[in-house]
C-alpha cells in the first residue's frame, strides 16, 4: 500500500498541491488532469525526486524517504521527459540502468532480452538510439521502468508522442504488465486510460477532486448528458445556454452532446456519461482558457 497523506507542495511561492490524500493498492490508477495541474509534481514526489513541503508518503507504513534504497528498488519510473544517451544502443542503455538498479549482471542480461522482446525492439536492440523514432524511444522508456520488476510502476504521460497504433499497443502491454502492482500513469488524454484504469484520480485547484472507479465518476453526471440535433444557425445560441461536450456534423444538421440539469425538450436524448464528459465538464474553465 502506498499512501499519500496530507501532502502539500509548492515551488517557491507557487503552491501546486495542497493537502493531498490518496491511497494506492494494487491496480492501475489514471492520474487525469489538464496541463499544469500538478500531475508531474505529484509523481516526482512519489519517485523521491521532490520532497513534500508538508505531509508524508508511506509505503507499507514506512516513509518512502526513510526507506531510501529499499523503496527505489521496487520502483519503476518513466519520466515525462525521458532522457537517454543518443550514442548508446537500447541494450547498452538498459544495461547501464540495470547496473544502477542493482540488478545482478546475468539476471540483467536475461531480463533485458525479455523486455526488448516484449516492447518489440529486439531486432533493433543494438542500433544507436539516435536512430530511433519517438515511439521506439518511448518503448525503451517503458522497458527500463520494468527492468527491476517493480512493485510500483509510475509512468508520466507514457503515450505522449505515440501514434494511435502505438497507443493501442501500449495499452495492451500495460494491461499485461500491471498484474500485482501499483501502476500510476498520468495523462490528459482520456482515451488512454478509459479502458485500462481501475481508478481515476482527478486533480483540480490543487486538490484531489475525484478518486474513484470510472463508473462512479461517470455517475456524477448521470441524467445530465444529452444529445440532440440542431440547425447550424442555432448552434451559437445553444452553446450559450448549455455546456457543449462535443459536436459533429450530421447531414445539414449538427449533432451536439451537452450538459443540462434537466431535460427541457423532448427531442433531447439522454445518454450515459463517459469519463471524457466528466473531464470536459470538470475542467471547463481551464479548457476554455486553453482553447
Amino acid at each position, binding site marked *: 500500500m502506498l499512501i499519500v497523506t496530507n501532502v502539500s507542495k509548492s515551488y517557491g511561492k507557487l503552491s501546486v498541491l495542497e493537502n493531498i490524500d490518496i491511497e494506492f493498492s494494487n491496480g492501475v490508477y489514471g492520474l487525469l488532469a489538464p496541463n499544469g495541474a500538478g500531475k508531474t509534481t505529484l509523481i516526482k514526489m512519489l519517485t523521491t525526486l521532490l*520532497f513534500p513541503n508538508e505531509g508524508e508518503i508511506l509505503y507499507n507504513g514506512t516513509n518512502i524517504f526513510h526507506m531510501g*534504497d529499499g523503496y527505489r528498488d521496487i520502483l519503476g*519510473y518513466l*519520466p515525462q*521527459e525521458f532522457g537517454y544517451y543518443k550514442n548508446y544502443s537500447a541494450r547498452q542503455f538498459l544495461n547501464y*540502468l540495470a547496473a544502477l*538498479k542493482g540488478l545482478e549482471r546475468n539476471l540483467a542480461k536475461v531480463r533485458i532480452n525479455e523486455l526488448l522482446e516484449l516492447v518489440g525492439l529486439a531486432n533493433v536492440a543494438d542500433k544507436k538510439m539516435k536512430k530511433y523514432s519517438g515511439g521506439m524511444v518511448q518503448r525503451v522508456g517503458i522497458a527500463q521502468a520494468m527492468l527491476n520488476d517493480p512493485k510500483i510502476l509510475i509512468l508520466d504521460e507514457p503515450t505522449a508522442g505515440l501514434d494511435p497504433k502505438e497507443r493501442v499497443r501500449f495499452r495492451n502491454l500495460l494491461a499485461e504488465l500491471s498484474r500485482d502492482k501499483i501502476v500510476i500513469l498520468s495523462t490528459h488524454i482520456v482515451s488512454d486510460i478509459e479502458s485500462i484504469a481501475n481508478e481515476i484520480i482527478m486533480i483540480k485547484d490543487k486538490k484531489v477532486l475525484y478518486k474513484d472507479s470510472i463508473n462512479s465518476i461517470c455517475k456524477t453526471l448521470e441524467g445530465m448528458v444529452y444529445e440532440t440535433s440542431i440547425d447550424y444557425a442555432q448552434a451559437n445560441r445553444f452553446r450559450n445556454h448549455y455546456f457543449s461536450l462535443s459536436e459533429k456534423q450530421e447531414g445539414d444538421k449538427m449533432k451536439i452532446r451537452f450538459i443540462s440539469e434537466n431535460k427541457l425538450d423532448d427531442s433531447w436524448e439522454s445518454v450515459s456519461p463517459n469519463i471524457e464528459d466528466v473531464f470536459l465538464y470538470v475542467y471547463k474553465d481551464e479548457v476554455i482558457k486553453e482553447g
Partner: protein
Amino acid sequence: MRILAHELKKIFNIKTIILLILINIIMYFLFTEYDINSFTINRPSYDIYKMFVEMEEAYGEFMDEEEFQDFIIKYEEAIKEADAYIQSREDFKRAGVNNYEDFINMDRENEDLNQLYYDVVFDKGIDVFWQLPWRKEYIKYYENREELMLAQAANEKQELRVKEILDKGLETSVFNHAVFFNYNSLMKSVSTSILVSVMFIITPIYLRDNKDKINYLQYTSKIGRRIFKKKLLAGLLATFILVTIQFICFFSIYSTNNTSMFFNKNINSIYNTIISWYDLTFIHYITISVIGTYILALAITLISMLVSSLGQSYIAVIGIQLPIGFFIIITASRYLINYMTSISYPKYFLELAYVVLILISLILMITRWKKEKQADILY
C-alpha cells in the same frame, strides 16, 4: 564497481578520447615542442649543458677546491684550443688576430673584423668559442660564490637560508640553469596541457546527465542520489588516469633531453637560478612538480565538477568554467608549478597555497553533495 566502470566509460568515450588526443597534439606543438627540440640546439644553453655533463663526469656531485683548480686548467686548455683554431686560419693572420685574447678584443666596429667574429661564432658555430665566455664567467662565480649567493637574499630569513646553504657547501653543486630553466619551462606547458585536458573531460560529468534529465532515472533507481558520489569518484579516477598517461608521455619525450646525470644534484647551485628553501636534488624537484600537478589536477577536477553540477547548459557551464580555469591555470603556471620552493616566496607559501586549494575545492564539493542529497530535483 560496475557503476564506477560505467561512469568511467561515459567519461572516456570515443569522441572525447579523439578530441583529447587532438587537444594534446595541438598544445604539444604550440607550447611544449619548442623546449624539447631546442634544448639540444639553443646556444649557449646547450654549450653550458655539455660543459656540465663533462664536469659531472669529472667532479661528481659537487666541485670542491681541488676540482675547481682542474676546472681552471680546463679553461686554459680551452683557450689554447681557441688559439690553435685562430692560428689555423689565414684570414685571422691577415687581420692581425693571433690568439683568443686578440679575438675578444677585436674592434667589432670594423666591418671586416665583425665579419670574422660572425663567421666563427655564428656561421661555423665553433663550440669552444661559445664555451669560453661561460667558463670564464663560471670561474668568477665560483670564486665569488659567497658574495653572489648572499646578494640574492633580500631579507633576514632568506639570508639565513643562504648561509645555511653556504655552510653545507651546496652551492658548489654541479647543476646548472640551462637544465633547470628548460625543465621549468616544459613543466609550465605540460601542466597547462594537463589542466586543460582535465577540464575538458570533467566538465560534462554532471551536466550531460542533468541536461538530458538522465538524472531522473539515476536518482530514482536503487543507487539513487549516491550516483552523485560515484560520478565524483569516477571523475577523480579519470583525472588520475589521464594525468598519469600524460606524464608517461611527457617524461618519455623529456628523456630525450638527456638530463638524468643531474637527477641527484642539488638545485641550490651557484650556477642555477633558484635558491630553494629546501635541500632538494633535481629529481626531488621533479617529483615535487609532478605531485603538484596531480594536486592541481585533482583540485581543478573538483571545481569543474562543482560547476558541472550547477549548470543546465553547456553554454552556461563553459561560461563559468573558462574564467575559473584560466585563472587557476595562469596562477598555477606562474606561482605554483614554476620555480617551486624558491626563496623569492615566503617559506610556507607553496605548502599553504596547495593546502588552501585542496581545502577550498573539497569543502565546496562536500557542501554540494550535502545539498544534492536533500534538494528537489526541479530540472
